[in-house]
């Protein structure tokens, strides 16, 4: 077996790791607006992208324009991203919905801070979980990922770009202020050690091309603007040719397809890490920086003889239902610690359907959930 090439190790911020991941994934466009605690992503992009061939960095006039520019870039064939935080995320919702409807791949990183409104700009929170799922208007599918440490910031950013390209959809990466501003050692994977996926480009003659054709995967090929495939992109409900329609059968076809293309690939999209969950009586379900506290708490509980486990969610939406159901076969208690008033626990309760007791730990004071808090609740059983 050939010896693995040593990976470069760097000491990096979570936000810095996001940029590293994005560049490895082939990101060549960043459009953004400064906001705490995500600004480092923008600053590092501003320094990096102009030095890369065809790399474009744009500071836009607001978050609405940032999202517009990112969609425009993606339509032109770029892998594009933006990063923001709470209030900016709210402003991006309108165009986020457009990206869902026009099936435009892009990555949106939201470093969560305390809300509502201006709230706690420099404190950690996980208060945008349901906004990430349902923030934009209308029934829509969405992929929401999260990262709990700096290495995961890098890895999950690559994953986010891959999913965006694979399924022609916006992908939201939720970080919290703790993850984004933690500095720790990470490894940068060498070329060939990570997967990079790019959107399918049509190969048929332009006159045969139908932009929103039904395909087996439900994901139609997507040519960059200006490549000879002239078509209409719209946020209006459209038919297979991309033209606006109000015919009920065409409306349903579109809605079904954009949902199906995400739903049917649940095995590829729903990512979790199962830590000692095989035989657990008490299972902690956590994500983001809270998952790190939870891991410690679970290990402590094990050393006290309690069969505890941790289901770490890397994909928040579509909610990893089958992983949860597998645990529900034996777990008597689920513990859901979060830095919000209970946004993910709603999902857990929905899937639980009364099988196990669901205990929530909620902090909204801008402080992290500590291992001892979680440990105490685990020990209550």
């Amino acid at each position, binding site marked *: 077996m050939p010896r693995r090439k040593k990976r470069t190790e760097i000491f990096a911020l979570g936000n810095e790791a996001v940029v590293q991941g994005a560049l490895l994934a082939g990101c060549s466009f960043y459009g953004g607006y400064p906001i705490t605690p995500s600004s480092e992503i923008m600053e590092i992009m501003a320094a990096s992208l102009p030095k890369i061939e065809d790399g474009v960095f744009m500071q836009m006039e607001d978050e609405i324009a940032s999202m517009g520019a990112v969609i425009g870039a993606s339509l032109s064939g770029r892998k594009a991203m933006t990063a923001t935080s709470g209030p900016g995320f709210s402003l991006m919702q309108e165009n986020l919905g457009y990206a869902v409807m026009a099936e435009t791949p892009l990555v949106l990183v939201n470093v969560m801070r305390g809300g509502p409104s201006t709230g706690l700009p420099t404190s950690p929170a996980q208060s945008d979980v349901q906004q990430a799922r349902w923030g934009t208007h209308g029934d829509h599918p969405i992929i929401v990922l999260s990262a709990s440490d700096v290495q995961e910031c890098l890895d999950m950013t690559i994953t986010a770009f891959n999913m965006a390209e694979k399924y022609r959809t916006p992908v939201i990466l939720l970080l919290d202020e703790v993850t984004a501003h933690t500095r720790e050692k990470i490894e940068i994977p060498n070329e060939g050690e990570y997967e990079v996926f790019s959107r399918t480009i049509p190969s048929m003659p332009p006159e045969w091309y139908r932009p929103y054709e039904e395909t087996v995967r439900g994901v139609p090929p997507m040519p960059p603007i200006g490549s000879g495939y002239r078509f209409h992109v719209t946020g*209006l409900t459209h038919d297979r040719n991309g033209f*606006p329609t109000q015919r009920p059968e065409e409306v349903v076809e579109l809605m079904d397809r954009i949902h199906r293309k995400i739903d049917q690939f649940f095995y590829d999209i729903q990512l979790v890490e199962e830590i000692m969950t095989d035989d657990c009586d008490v299972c902690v379900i956590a994500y983001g920086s809270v998952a790190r506290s939870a891991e410690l708490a679970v290990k402590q509980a094990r050393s006290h003889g309690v069969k505890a486990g941790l289901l770490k969610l890397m994909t928040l939406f579509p909610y990893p239902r089958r992983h949860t159901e597998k645990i529900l076969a034996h777990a008597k208690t689920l513990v859901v610690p979060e830095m919000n008033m209970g946004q993910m626990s709603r999902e857990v309760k929905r899937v639980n359907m009364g099988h196990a007791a669901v205990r929530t730990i909620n902090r909204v004071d801008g402080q992290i959930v500590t291992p001892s808090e979680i440990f105490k609740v685990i020990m209550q059983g």
Partner: protein
Amino acid sequence: MSKNITGNEIIHQYLRHNKKFPHVLCAGCGHGIVLGTLIRSIHSLGIPKDDVVVVAGIGCSGRLAVYVDFNTVHTTHGRALSFATGIKMSNPKLHVIALMGDGDALSIGGNHLIHAARRNIGVTALILNNSIYGMTGGQSSPATPEGSTTMTNPYGQLDHSFDTVELAKGAGANYVARGTVFHVNRLEKVMVEALERPGFSVVEAITPCHTQYGRKNKYKTPVDMYKWLKSTAITVERYNELPEEKREGRMPIGVFVDRQQPGFEERYYAMQDGFLKRSAKGGK
């Protein structure tokens, strides 16, 4: 006469005949004239269809994009310029035209307009000003003249209206012009220039909306609205010669700014070339 026939033939080469017609525009609307002018301008410059991107906002003007056989993007309300910025920066070879209405460009998208002008991004902004929100049923827009009656100002508009030309000038646009759908040849001339110029160019096309504006404001027929255009519009050269007291109620048309500054994308890629050349030489 023969000239008109050729004009129609040109237009038909650029329409999407597989699109479900008829179009959404009312009888007497000026939007079609603007679109026709745009098509003839692109044709006369010989720009290939594949290199043209029409990015439209929301409203009657936003609906125009779907009918033309270019790369077309129908965006969200007011945001056409931000999408256009992303497209132009990603592929500077493309001719990007942002098609917006007055509500689109001056109200909800006002911020994007001034910043696109300040940035001098190489996009042509074509603002179809019909003084009203037509598609939503005739509510006041920032371009509705003071004193007009609209659905949201049934007792007369109190606020002042925006002057698109002054706004674009003040924000630093590279090329600023105004035309009307009555003075089609002049409109075509400025549109051709706007498409040729580097940087951000703004063309305001005054186009009447009889359905939502005219009939509520003493213009009984669409023809009255075109007569109004004919009688108020005056070339900017002649307007400047008029004494102050005679300028009241007249609308200057023509070219107001022509700076010929390089666009943002040109400057950005020049900076990037500098970095790449230096790193190719082994420097930093």
